[in-house]
């Protein structure tokens, strides 16, 4: 193999073209080798079911009998005839629009708190993380009681301390989603998102903080000019996955309210689930799922594009 000069990256003219392309080829081959676990798994396990679900979206299919082709009927039905399609979408975006910003900011604040080296940090960290360790069903049942309109502690406080008539939470279509939002925030702020922020914070080099301190920067200036830029990759990560996760909200609504009352928490994922596994409209559910997936892809693509303006990778 030709000797590549480190300073100029160029080879003696004759061997240049052959040597560089060989090294480039090796680079590409290695890349695909490293990707192979995912590539192989994707093709073998995921690709076919995904393509099948796309196919089924143009059929009516109930699992136990052969599917019947119906063309774009499912898509038309969703956009024009399904009474719950647009409302579901709206509710899902409402939920995500509140949960994601509050959740990301909340997790970051908690992580910053825990990053301070005080005594017993490991205990505090574990406390904050506990809601994520209790299975969703248990915490949801607990939350439903906390927000019980008549005997739950939250309303007791609102009544006796603040002397107001409190909302009836999961009994009231207007207050059901805020109730769920509070449940989600409580169980997820101290959870994996916070852990990821912690890991990101730990990755910020000490020297940068020292340099800033020498320049006389206070803690807010240090946060704004050192911490924030350095953790933008982590924020970006949490934002993207936060949006994807929030738009797919399902379990809490399923357990707490079964989509009610009066469709109040009938999120899009619930719409898909019910059509797929309760009504066995698998074809229609597939159409719903694909429309949603395309929407999320578009949203994520947008976020990826925008990320080039604000995310700073230390390694580039």
């Amino acid at each position: 193999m030709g000797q590549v000069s480190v300073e100029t990256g160029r080879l003696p003219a004759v061997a240049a073209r052959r040597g560089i392309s060989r090294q480039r080829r090796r680079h590409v081959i290695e890349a695909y080798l490293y990707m192979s676990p995912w590539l192989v798994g994707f093709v073998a396990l995921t690709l076919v079911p995904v393509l099948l679900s796309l196919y089924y979206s143009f059929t009516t299919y109930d699992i136990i009998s052969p599917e019947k082709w119906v063309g774009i009927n499912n898509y038309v039905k969703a956009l024009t005839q399904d009474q719950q399609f647009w409302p579901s979408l709206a509710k899902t975006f409402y939920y995500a629009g509140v949960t994601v910003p509050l959740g990301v900011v909340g997790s970051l604040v908690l992580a910053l708190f825990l990053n301070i080296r005080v005594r017993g940090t490991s205990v505090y960290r574990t406390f904050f993380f506990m809601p994520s360790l209790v299975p969703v069903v248990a915490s949801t049942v607990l939350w439903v009681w906390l927000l019980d309109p008549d005997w739950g502690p939250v309303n007791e406080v609102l009544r006796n301390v603040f002397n107001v008539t409190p909302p009836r939470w999961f009994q009231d279509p207007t207050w059901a989603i805020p109730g769920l939002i509070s449940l989600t925030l409580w169980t997820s702020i101290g959870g994996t998102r916070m852990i990821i922020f912690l890991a990101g914070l730990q990755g910020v080099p000490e020297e940068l903080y020292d340099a800033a301190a020498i320049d006389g920067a206070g803690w807010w200036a240090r946060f704004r000019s050192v911490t924030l830029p350095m953790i933008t990759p982590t924020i970006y990560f949490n934002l993207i996955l936060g949006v994807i996760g929030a738009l797919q909200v399902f379990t809490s609504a399923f357990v707490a309210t079964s989509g009610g009352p009066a469709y109040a928490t009938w999120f899009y994922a619930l719409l898909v689930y019910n059509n797929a596994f309760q009504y066995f409209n698998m074809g229609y559910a597939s159409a719903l799922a694909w429309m949603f997936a395309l929407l999320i892809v578009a949203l994520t693509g947008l976020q990826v594009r925008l990320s080039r303006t604000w995310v700073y990778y230390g390694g580039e």
Partner: protein
Amino acid sequence: MHHTATSRRAILTLLAGVPALALLAACGGTAATTQTASSQTAAPTSVAASSAAAATTQAASSAAQPTSASANAQAANVHLYWDTFRGVGTPWPDQRIKAFQDANPGVTAEMRPIPTPQSQQDAYPKMYAMYASGTLGDVFAFDPSHWEFYRAVPKGLIRAIDDYISRDRFDLAQFYPPFVEMQKLNGKTWGLPSWGWSGQDGFIYNQVIFQQEGIAEPDYNSPQWTMDAIRQLAQKLTKMGSNGAYDRYGMELALGAAGASVYTRAYNQPDFYEPTKSDILDPKVQPAFQWVQNMAQVDKSLALPGGFQGADTALFASGKLAIIQSGSLTAFNAFKAIKDPKVAVVASALFPKRTDGNRPSHMRGGTWNVGTLSKNPEAAWKFVQNLDNHDGTLTFNTIGGNGALVRPDIMSDSYFSLPAFKPYLENLLTAMPAVVPANGRGTEFEQTVSQTWAESYLGKANFQDGIKKLNDAVQGVLSEAAQ
């Protein structure tokens, strides 16, 4: 650097050794698990635990059968698979299997539990997937009350058993007739009754509250016991606190399609819908919905869904809920939930009689089916009988945790001597079946009613608009094509 090197090596060894272990475990699955299961029996010491241990050993040895059965492919040993979510977590399935195996040497059976995540409805996707991939068992249940019966039968998942019934001269009269009728579709019989009760056709009420308030307990045989009387009773028993809180709810109704059916029938109509048509806007059906609306929005005496979830019996036992529309099952549950008889004592009443002399009801029931994929339908048929005979059905109630009130001959058992249960007996003979949507979309219909009706009784829409919306939604589902 040295530190990182050693820890990395340690991690490497761990990582390397583990997949090998997992490989071993996954391959040697059956053998290894049988091993663990039998070592389980050494641990427990209490009486209750030893019966569970005996059950585990039994299950362990029957779980070991597949290996030997598949090994001796041509052996006379027949092995049945029983897929269900019923009785999971109780000793009932293992007891039934033992009884069957004792009576049928040469045949073994294995239960494959389906631990449903949230509701019993969730078992069906798995069962359909198993059918589609050819692995559904010999005996299972597509319950009529879950509507899937009406999908599974036409699609060929279930084997009709009329030939066995006539050949063996099996006496269907050993069951209450309504539950036998439930097993029939298109002129054939598709299973034997499993669980069943007459639905939420009555009320349980807290005697202590009635005594405290000085109100006479309901006499459900008297002509004064009308729907209006029930409404007034609920209103009298409701106590409000400050700032919108309730100290006590008067009544909890079953606010869904089944409930609506019962109220419509209480007002002497057949039901609020027909197989292809919604009758909600019929002026003769309106009083049923008006009755609910009055209690919910005018009197505000109803405990509405969305509070302390699924715990109406807990509310009842704590004296916070005076009356619950319920059936015999709820009477049992409430009884078991009561800790302090000074706070709550349960008694029952029924809905007023209709003009035809029967009480309104909306029966719920299940089935045990023989699958069309079964290679041993004969043995499966015997197994179904074993689940359904006197002992099977009785223990289904007493230890299996189900309400299986399908046989007259078990009613004399002391388990049913609960006074609060007695009133429901009369409805078992005259239980009214559900109207089945012609397109088989029962679940969709049920959920649509639940969600859409809520807008009315939660006061989010005025009554006329709300009922119209409900009618349109129900008609929409009933008009859809069959799948």
